């Protein structure tokens, strides 16, 4: 029998006071504190929006037009801004989803990892990193200042175009990645029974990947709906309702630009309206985000 002393320093028993265990506990606590600090702003922002915003919500606020800033105690409502956010986001979705899904289909189904597809993948990442204000400046330079769209400058269409630039990379990436999750057996099977590549993509792989793609689109929509920077000199702002087809070619109100404009006004009533608009905007975005997560649950395994 050898005589290893098992009660000395080399013990395998857990010793609470050893430096390694103290370090371990300490780092646990520090990382817990970091987590709390990280989520603290979210809680604070949500509380303030809830307190300052929700108390003002009533039917009038949701349906009336905003009053131009002044000493007036009544700032009006945010009806046209809510409608405007929907319109601009819809335009952006209408433009970016077909192009983005098409681009994603090319990357996942048609490209043979050649130079062109590598460049497109790289370009998609670069486009995703372009600051949103640059997208606004690009649309301003290309469309607003040149009045290329039927001679109008600031318009809902220009705003929608600016937002679509921001949505495009997300839609392309999620389509690409969603299609890659589809098993190759489905592809070879479809081709083996004589389907053309067009039929294979539209009838087999795209439907199979529809969930991750839909999740990505909804996420892109919710990101676009909250954007301000691309809109401030494309869609501008408006104190009137947008109605009829000509509304597309006129400046349009949106919740985010309303918050930006009215937060910087020196008048209390306008600031309050900005809080109310924040409440509605955040509510909308949280709903679309939950929808995206809900859709994401059904992703193929």
């Amino acid at each position, binding site marked *: 029998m050898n005589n290893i002393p098992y009660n000395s320093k080399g013990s395998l028993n857990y010793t609470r006071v050893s430096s*390694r265990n103290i370090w*371990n506990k300490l*780092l*646990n606590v520090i*990382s817990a504190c*970091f987590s709390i*600090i*990280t*989520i603290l*702003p*979210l*809680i604070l*922002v949500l509380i*303030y*929006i809830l307190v300052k915003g929700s108390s003002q919500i009533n039917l009038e606020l949701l349906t009336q037009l905003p009053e131009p800033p002044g000493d007036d105690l009544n700032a009006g409502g945010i009806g046209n801004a809510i409608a405007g956010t929907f319109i601009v986001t819809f335009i952006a979705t209408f433009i970016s989803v*077909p192009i*983005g899904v*098409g681009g994603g*289909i*090319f*990357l996942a*189904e048609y*490209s043979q990892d050649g130079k062109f597809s590598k460049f*497109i993948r*790289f370009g*998609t*990442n*670069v*486009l995703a*990193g*372009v*600051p949103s*204000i*640059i997208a606004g*400046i*690009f649309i301003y*330079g*290309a469309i607003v200042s040149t009045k290329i769209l039927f001679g109008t400058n600031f318009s809902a269409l220009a705003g929608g175009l600016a937002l679509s*630039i921001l949505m*495009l990379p997300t839609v*392309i990436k999620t389509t690409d990645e969603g299609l890659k999750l589809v098993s190759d057996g489905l592809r070879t099977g479809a081709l083996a029974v004589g389907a*053309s*590549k*067009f039929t294979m993509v*539209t009838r087999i792989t795209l439907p199979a990947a529809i969930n991750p793609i839909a999740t990505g689109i909804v996420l892109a929509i*919710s990101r676009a709906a*909250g954007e*301000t*920077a691309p809109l*401030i000199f494309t869609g501008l702002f408006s104190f009137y309702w947008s109605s009829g087809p000509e509304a597309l070619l006129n400046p349009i109100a949106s919740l*985010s630009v309303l*918050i*930006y404009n009215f*937060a910087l006004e020196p008048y209390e009533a306008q*600031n309050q309206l*900005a*809080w109310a608009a*924040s409440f509605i*905007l955040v509510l909308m975005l949280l709903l679309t*985000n939950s929808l995206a997560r809900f859709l994401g649950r059904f992703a193929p395994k």
Partner: protein
Amino acid sequence: MPEFKSDPFLLRRRSNSEKIVDKGFKSLVILMASMVAILLFGIFLVVFGGSIESIGRYGLAFLVTSEWNPVTDKYGAFTAIYGTLLTSILSLFIAVPLGVGTAIFITEDVIPAKLRFLIGGMVELLAAIPSVVLGLWAIFVMEPFIRPFLIYLNNSFSWIPFFSTQPVGPGMAPAILILVVMILPIITAISRDSLNQVPKKLREAAYGVGATRWASITNVILPAAISGIAGGVLLSLGRAMGETMAVTMIIGNSNNFNWSILSPGNTIAAMLANQFGEADGSQVSSLMFAALILMLLTLLVNIFAQWMVKKLSLKY
């Protein structure tokens, strides 16, 4: 003997219309994919084309002079470039430990899985709060709250150039803090993904040789995940540089150069948001020049991020 009858539906030739649709669809998706390239090229063309006048007039001196005066028509972007780099880098210094710490906390099993999912979900929700709402909150809630601390900093450390001015409300310090809030979700999400991708074997091996939880995190798991984390940090640096609304609302939009982070300042993005709508003539051109610089900066950071992920990734 049974006779094989040739079935008209077997081995038929593709009809011409089917071929056209097939080819047309391929061309269509190629065209749509090309839109990315066309857009990037267009953005560069518009911004570069718009700034030619200013580039010709100021050249590289634009980068190092800090006078920005629409009245005398003299422009230099040093104040905005300094503000952009200072706010984004300082916010990174605060956000990286917080974000990586949070990511570790919610990938390890220190607390029950349900709580971890809750924290992870909340971080994702934070990313969904639009920048303009954070700006509103920063103006009316955060800035008044932190002002006493900033005044204390100024009173005690005014001999340090960074704290040499009296805080007057909006300024670079609150802008840095709001940037921290904005990039934390990105750093946390990407770090969490990279940590989750570390193979289980590594962790089991580390525990197997008797490492404590944090010994295995710092010596085994973090080094294995470092490529993703570094890439995420760089991506968030790019985001911080280009972040516009919240910063515009809280930074004070001052074009007078000052070293102090307690004084109002400017970033390129904030300057664009604030002045572009009302600018004309050579001011537009100078703003476009500033936008070009911002674009090149973010492009550089993003390319570096992608390169880093490839270069540092360990293969398991």
